[in-house]
């Protein structure tokens, strides 16, 4: 009798020091059901997580949307030129009122779906998403070896802007007397090459100084001022050299080059910040292309028949 009592199994909720598979399953099942119930309740009644206190970094919560203290301080600074600790109560009241007003208007705008139609809001959203995508590239400084390799493979990009000083002398074409004009301009070019001063040549040969250039100019400016044809002729001449006559619709030009500093290749150290910017720009462009592909691939896009051919 005593032995039987000793062999009796303990109740389900007795002896927690001993493992009881049945009890374990019941507890597991109860936990699972409770979890599912809580999740279901949250899912079907959810209005988002609601908090009843204002986090320390915020000034207020408007329908759970924070108004940041840092924005509040910046508004005070911008509007009144004072920091938060020095602003008067009236100033703070005014700024707070305006920020609350803006927030409720923004929220109303969202309710009305305005971001869908307002171009400025759409642009701001695109910009914000791009920025988020590119944040890692923006914040990281790539390894020096990577940058050097990039520099080596794009060396042509890294040069100073050349500069040139040219006087453009023109002998206008004179109708049927082109041959005569040509002879005269050839003589002028020869005289200039043999040391005649520009002023003397202007008088003797009837040349006209076009004054297209304003002394020494960067190559890009000289190209604009002289035009592509004359610039192409001038850029290969050295200081002191005179071009052969160049025929244009205006007549014959002689270019007298007083100075020419062609672009000089920049060393890696000199071009470092430009290399870094270009490297990041390239990386950003690649990332953006991939992200666009991903987002477009993920989107359910139905094209109207007549536009399908443009969607490639």
């Amino acid at each position: 009798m005593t032995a039987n009592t000793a062999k009796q199994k303990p109740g389900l909720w007795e002896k927690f020091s001993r493992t009881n598979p049945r009890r374990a399953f019941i507890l597991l099942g109860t936990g699972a059901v409770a979890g599912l119930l809580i999740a279901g309740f949250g899912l079907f009644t959810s209005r988002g997580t609601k908090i009843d206190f204002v986090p320390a970094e915020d000034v207020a919560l408007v329908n759970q949307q924070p108004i940041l203290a840092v924005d509040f301080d910046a508004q005070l600074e911008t509007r009144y030129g004072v920091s938060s600790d020095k602003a008067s109560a009236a100033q703070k009241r005014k700024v707070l009122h305006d920020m609350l007003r803006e927030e409720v208007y923004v929220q109303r705008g969202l309710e009305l779906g305005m971001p869908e139609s307002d171009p400025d809001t759409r642009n701001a959203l695109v910009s914000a998403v791009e920025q988020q995508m590119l944040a890692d590239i923006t914040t990281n400084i790539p390894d020096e070896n990577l940058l050097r390799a990039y520099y080596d493979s794009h060396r042509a990009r890294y040069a100073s802007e050349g500069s040139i000083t040219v006087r453009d002398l023109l002998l206008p074409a004179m109708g049927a007397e082109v041959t005569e004009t040509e002879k005269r301009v050839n003589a002028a070019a020869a005289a200039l090459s043999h040391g005649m001063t520009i002023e003397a040549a202007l008088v003797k040969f009837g040349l006209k100084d076009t004054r297209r250039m304003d002394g020494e100019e960067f190559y890009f400016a000289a190209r604009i001022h002289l035009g592509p044809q004359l610039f192409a002729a001038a850029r290969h001449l050295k200081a002191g050299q005179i071009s052969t006559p160049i025929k244009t619709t205006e007549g014959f030009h002689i270019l007298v080059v007083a100075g020419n500093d062609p672009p000089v290749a920049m060393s890696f150290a000199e071009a470092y910040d430009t290399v870094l910017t270009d490297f990041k720009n390239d990386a950003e462009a690649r990332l953006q292309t991939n992200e666009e592909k991903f987002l477009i691939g993920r989107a359910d896009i139905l094209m109207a028949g007549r536009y399908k051919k443009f969607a490639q």
Partner: protein
Amino acid sequence: MSAERESLARHGAIIAIVCLLLGSIGWYAYSQTMKYRLMATEADLVPADVGLVHFAQGLAEPAYQKNCASCHGRTLQGNSRLGAPDLTDSDWLYGFGKVSQIEYTINYGIRSGNPKARNLAFMPSFAHPNDDKEKLAALTPGEIKNVIQYVFSLQERSTDTAAVQRGAAIYSDKGACYDCHARDGRGDHEVGAPNLADTVWLNGDGSPRSVFQSIAAGRAGVCPAWKDRLEPAVIRALAVFIHQKATISP
């Protein structure tokens, strides 16, 4: 004896675990309380609270090394190759070094693409056709050299008086440099235009060649917006940390 030892070891282990647990909970509670205090205090009043400053520095140091040191350097002394300013001097580009101003910059960045970023101006390139909104005229190499002489005259190191006069005229007229750098060349903290009258160089070493490069090619440094990447308390801690470094450094 062996059973006794075993029991002692077991009890010791339990006590150690409990202590560790309580210690962790205590540290977490302390940390959260301090973060709350850090955020609940007006940003510009934090430096007056030694306890908060100490806590902020501890919180900021690892975040700085992880996120900021790659540009501003491990010792905060900047990198003139990148145009990343020295954070240990008292020469501020934006604002005047108040914690709230530094915090704003960290939150939204500089030319970061964030709509609230500090983005009012950039240094245009004067050796390229300028088709931006400002429609600034490009300058000739000679004009740039004159402007450099004028800038050097503000630092009392110009070498050509006539060039200084020509440069002053370009500074105030064709180049429109005054628009950002101010009539007296002392910069504008609203738009982040550097002071040209001091000897602090944001980009390059201040040699004629490097200044020429800045004017010819332009500059537009970027600081990312950290608002959505770091928690607010860490951002404020970083602002306090930088403010302290700048204030304490000689």
